[in-house]
């Protein structure tokens, strides 16, 4: 249902923009391509050009227990942080969207603070808090401190996505649902949730990505726990491990391509990132409330 747009840009501009786009894409992806190439470097020296092609590092990485351990820790931390962020972020989005209260504008300001303030400030603050917590209530550095740290700056990502979607959703839907006899839970389950599902998914994926790759704050909150970025940080300084690190990076990139692609398709179908205000599609809502007569 896309409206045909009249391109106002003259041909020269279109060609120029296309060229610049290609240049920027090249800038973005050339280093990633180089990482891919270095993963097959038979030597551990970092000189260019590469002396050959070898898959020995793939084998070495697969056999590396530490990599597997770090990966599992990162996955656990990511899932934990994402779950917390989804819960807290959507709650906050509902509150801000549906109610008018004192300090409404400042909520979004405070939620974005963990991301907007430099990571080292956040890291130091959390580190001191954990140390003091250690003295007061015996808190110690562990997977949970990592999760708490990550959740704190992942909340805003979910919040932004959900509130953007809520703003696009007509409020009359909720009223219609209540008029038709649904209680709060039914409204939530059959009206609200389908509407924000894709926003939750997009927010959740982005939150997971943030947590999975985080190193700056994690350095301060992890103690002796090793997440994947921390493993990479420790092993980039060991020359023989660098090719293993490259392989790990390649695997991470390839493995994340799929969920990012899926998230892209889903958000796009629901009119996520590519919405035009004048052609906003009406959301399809499943109206299957019990006790209602089918029209």
């Amino acid at each position, binding site marked *: 249902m896309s409206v045909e747009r009249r391109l106002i840009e003259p041909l020269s501009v279109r060609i120029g923009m296309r060229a610049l786009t290609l240049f920027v894409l090249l800038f973005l992806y050339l280093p990633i391509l180089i990482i891919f190439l270095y993963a097959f470097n038979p030597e551990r*020296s*970092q*000189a260019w050009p590469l002396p050959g092609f070898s898959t020995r590092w793939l084998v070495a990485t697969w056999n590396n227990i530490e990599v597997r351990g770090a990966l599992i820790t990162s996955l656990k931390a990511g899932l934990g942080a994402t779950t917390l962020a989804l819960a807290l972020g959507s709650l906050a989005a509902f509150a801000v969207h549906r109610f008018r209260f004192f300090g409404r504008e400042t909520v979004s300001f405070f939620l974005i603070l963990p991301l907007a303030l430099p990571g080292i400030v956040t890291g130091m603050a959390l580190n001191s808090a954990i140390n003091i917590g*250690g*003295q007061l209530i015996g808190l*110690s*550095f562990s997977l949970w401190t990592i999760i708490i740290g990550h959740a704190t700056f992942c909340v805003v990502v979910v919040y932004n996505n959900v509130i953007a979607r809520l703003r696009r959703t007509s409020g009359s839907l909720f009223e219609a649902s209540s008029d038709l006899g649904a209680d709060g839970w039914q409204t939530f389950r059959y009206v609200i949730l389908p509407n924000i599902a894709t926003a939750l998914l997009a927010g959740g994926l982005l939150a997971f990505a943030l947590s999975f790759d985080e190193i700056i704050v994690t350095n301060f909150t992890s*103690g*002796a726990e090793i997440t994947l970025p921390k493993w990479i940080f*420790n092993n*980039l*300084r*060991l*020359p*023989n*491990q660098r090719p293993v690190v490259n392989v790990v990076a390649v695997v991470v990139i390839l493995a994340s391509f799929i969920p990012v692609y899926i998230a892209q398709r889903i958000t796009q179908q629901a009119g996520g990132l590519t919405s035009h205000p004048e052609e906003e599609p009406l959301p399809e809502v499943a109206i299957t409330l019990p006790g209602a007569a089918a029209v």
Partner: protein
Amino acid sequence: MKARLRLAMATAAVIVMAACGSTTSAPASNLPQSIGPGEQKLNLIAWTGYVESGKTDPKVDWVTPFQTQTGCTINVKFADTSDEMVTLMRQGGGTVWDGVSASGDATNRLIAHGDVAEVNVNLIPDFKDVIQSLQSPRHNTINGHHYGVPYMYGPNVLMYNTQKVNPAPTSWDVTWETNSPYKGKIAAYDNTIFIADAALYLKAHKPELNITDVYELTSAQLDAAINLLKQQAPMIKKYWSATTDETDPFSSGDIVIGTAWPYQVSFLKSENKPVAALVPSEGATGWADTWMMSSHAQHPNCMYLWMKYTEQPSVQDQVAEFYGATPSNAKACDLLRTHIGASADADYHCGDNAFLHNIALWKTPLQNCGDSRGNTCTDYSVWAQRWQEVRGTK
């Protein structure tokens, strides 16, 4: 000011007690009398290259045999500076890390702060073979109480690219003087303690400053050292603390000369890079490392087992051949001579007490000069602030 004075006095008191104390070991009665069963785990902080498990070179591995023998799985964190080691040891109230391979500029801080526990050296059978100077040195023995077991020692050498540096250097001057032909391609150590290297150079070239101990500097001497460092800063390509921050640019040719640990020299040689190293005419700073155990260690038995294991001649010989540092166990020197011949004495100066005395070993600068100058010297916190000035210029 007052607080720093108190630190200085406290640490000085500890050192003075050590100097006056006897050298025979007199363990306190609450020391363990035997090593209990291993706890299956051991968390260590170490200098890169000290705890090798085959990751750098599959043939270089003294960790796996230990793990097999004792069942203690080692989790090692490689630290780059003594400051980092001190901070890590204090993490979680001292419960996160069980042991550390501390150099002399960390040991006294750790002892004074109560971070490390006294060790019963009677439980370490190979301790009696340690060379005389390292049996009860002031940096780890206070009043006859041992706070660790000695591991390896060595100088901070001048490493250079044999193809790009001609003629071969004999003095540190090519790294300090502004007319150096290699400026912009020099490496320096990125830590406060490097001030002592500047003082070492000034001791030889500016005798009017009357520098006697490069770690005990008056304000005037410290000013001179800082000025020399500020003069050097624009010529430095990279201040390194992680060893790869020196070996990478050396390999790529971005750096051709600079201060290094024997580890970097050994590593680059194993990569067939054209490097050589020497202790120049002015001498060198250096370090003697001690394995110390946290006073709140969660796995003390594994730590004792590790200390016992690494004191053995066979292990220290392996470390020496890989790292380039000198073993503290005199019996290891015999093994070293068998394996590498004359180099054991020529390059490693194995078992040579006199050579050890000529290295200005890393130690914590204190306000108490330890001589007739009294309390007029600058302590580590002052050094750290001045070092920030040097690094902030780039």
